[in-house]
């Protein structure tokens, strides 16, 4: 992973996680798979770095966690979005869209 990509990821990982979890209760491995899959392997980070982020979001009350049986029959930790997390996600998505609109506008017109 290049240095720029890592820096870029740091700020957006929280939003990506929230977005993925918003679809319904999901465990850590599945989250990492989803992110890689959707982004077409753009985000190639050490998979372990997902976990401190998950725990941080849980500590902030944006995610709620529960232990239950996974599809393989083993117990796994499933995360789901809290009401606070939902609000945060909306705010971050809005912020991101504004930012990306502005950036793309500049890129298109600043020639």
């Amino acid at each position, binding site marked *: 992973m290049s240095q720029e990509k890592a820096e870029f990821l740091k700020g957006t990982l929280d939003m990506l996680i929230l977005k993925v979890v918003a679809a319904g209760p999901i465990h850590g491995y599945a989250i990492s798979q989803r992110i890689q899959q959707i982004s077409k392997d753009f985000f190639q980070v*050490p998979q372990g770095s997902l976990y401190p982020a998950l725990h941080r979001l849980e500590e902030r009350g944006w995610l709620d966690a529960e232990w239950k049986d996974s599809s393989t029959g*083993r117990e*796994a930790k499933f995360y789901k979005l809290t009401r606070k997390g939902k609000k945060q996600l909306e705010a971050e998505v809005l912020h991101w869209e504004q930012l990306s609109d502005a950036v793309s506008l500049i890129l298109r017109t600043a020639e």
Partner: protein
Amino acid sequence: MGWLRRLGQRSLVDRRLDSELHFHLEQQIAAYISSGISPVEARRRANLEFGGIERFKEECRDVRAETRVHEFLYDLRYAWRSLRKDLRFSLLAVFALTIGIGCSTIIFSIVYNGVLHPFPYQGGERLVALSVWDLAKPADSKEGKRPVFTLPEIRAFRERNRTLEDVVGWGNWYVLYKTQEGTESLHGCRVTANAFEFFGVTPLLGRILTTEDAKPGATPIAAIDYKLWKRLFHGDRGVIGAKMILDDTPVTIVAVMPPRFTPDGADLWAPVPASLEQADPNRIRYDNEPTYFFATGRLKRGTTPAAAGADLNVIAKQLATSSPDDYPQKFSTVARLLSDAVVADFKAILYFLMAAVAMLLLISCGNVANLLLVRATAREREIALRAAIGASHGRLVRQLLTEAFVLAGIGCFSGCALAYLGLKLMLVHLPPRIPGEADISLNLPVLGFAVLVSLVTVFLSGLSPALHAVGGNFRNKLTSVGTISTSFRQSKLRSGLIVGEVALSMALLVFAGLMLRSFHALTHVPFGFDPSRVLSANLSFPKGRYTTAHQKKAYFDRVLPKVAELPGVTAVATSIMIPLKHAAGSVLVIQGKAPPDPHRERSATMLDLCSEGIFRIFDIELVKGRVFTAEDVAAARRVAVVNQTFVREFFASEDPVGQRFKLTVFDELPESPRDAYFEIVGVVSDVRNRGLEGPPFQQVYVPYSVSGFAHRDLMVRTSVDPLSVLKSVRQQVWSVDRDVAFADPEGLNTILTRVYFAAPQFGVFAITAFAAVGLLLVVIGVFGLMAYSVSLQRHEIGLRMALGAT
């Protein structure tokens, strides 16, 4: 509060984290295997992609709040252990903290409970005392101030103001009360009917006084003071409904007030009777009911005393147009916060002491900071090692601060203990300027202050050594062998602290010296007489008895010789003034001279009605002529002795002896000679009859037997401690007539101390103690620092000696 729950089940949390991460790995391995990769290769790849599992576990733990708490608890335990290991250091530091925190807590308690929040009354911080200031007089003088009002004035203020929630009036009302041995004079206080609702204090027993109690025809009732209840009724709870005979009138006790309810410092409170409410305030009355009342108001929320003063001034201007005699030509009405008015000049001393304890606190912070600094220097290697194996700067600073925190915790605890003992000691010396309502103790706000001070101390004394310790190059510190680094000796911080400490303690000592000097000067103001061996008491006569000059003369003819015979008594006299306590005065008309300027004060000359013994009591020097004699008194001759200031004022170039003057006050008073001229027979030296600040006032002494008016005082000069003869003097007075009250017996020295010396004495006492303690702290601090650093350099010193150093 999930973290609190998780705090208790740490191993479970760790296991869960472990299984969460392993679940991920195993899923990944399973996915690789199912895509046809060999199990060994699958595990290798999965591990590679995941990254270091232990590292992420650590990061996960770090984001959890309970981890901080665990770390803190570890640090606490570690700090406690290392402080116990280094007992000498710990004791020095705790000692310094105890002194700093304890002393500042003591002074804070006095300021907070005695000055800022002394009154337990409803809206106590908003109570204001009202007065009228004569603008022609200097702002600070007592003479230019009229703090009392008539009832109609108070009523007008109450009804027409827009800035006060309510106004009450209260006036002194001295009443006689018979006990088994004799008669006492109780300090009653007549209050307007709204007073008890105004103060909003629940009685200890009984009910509050209401407006019903002041209606015409209501039975006389009173609420009594806690101390009086304990003294006269021994705390009997059945006292409610009992009757006290006050001045021959039965008064029903309806309430016992709690100890902190002491308006006016009175023994009992009773409503202003309806008769007084309707009386003409301009007619002088001669009963013991008050004519003038002090007025206290409570500001509306958000109103300043200045705004209230301006508001009341408008009302006072209207009152002045209808009764111009009661107001100066130019005046202003002033509302002054009660706590300001009561504590007055003592506040300056208290703020001075606050500055002193702040310095003391800084000294102890400096002490502790220095000790921590030396200790941190000694632990440089330990800290470097910790940094080397992965502790972050923040983590190290936290750990070092935790040590300071533990020290401050212990210091806070022992400081509070010191403050508790110190307050007990201080309360004995506390001057009477602090209102009686104040409850100076270690209450919640004060304890909060102690904790706050401790926290500030932690940061002041702990932070810079901690930052100092983790700064710099760790590699050098790791490789230096067993000695403390050269940075120790060159530390500017360390020497700066020592210099600062010594400077502060010098400043404290200089303050103490200055205060001692001015106190010494104050106590050595020549007084005109020796006050140390004089006992004074007020004699109050029962209603309708001893009213004429003859009756008074007959009474004192029996009392004075009886008291004079007592062992230890060298002189005895009757008088109507007690220096610094009360005095009388009159306008003077000198025969053959122009009548006095009507704009001068009424009490232009001080007047004492006394027996011939007074000149021996005060040890007054005869300057010219003679003093009057027992025969003059017996014959009630109209002779007078004047003081030197009197001569300077009225007879600058003439011989005063043989001149005659008239005291106009006698023309108005009952039982007094009308249009009587007194002949000056002698001139005596001045006595400080107005206290220590001002120059003496012109004064005349005339035989007490010329008038039957007024209460009289008894003055006794003794060859022993005046209080030791108190009991026998009282016995003698009561042996003549049990119905005469023997009130407020006090040595003149006691009065002098109370009025002038108590406040500065307290200041001197406190600042001397603080300065001494400050010096002690510095000495111990420097000594401890030297001893500690020498012990750290033992290795180096040994080496130098081995190499031949002497």
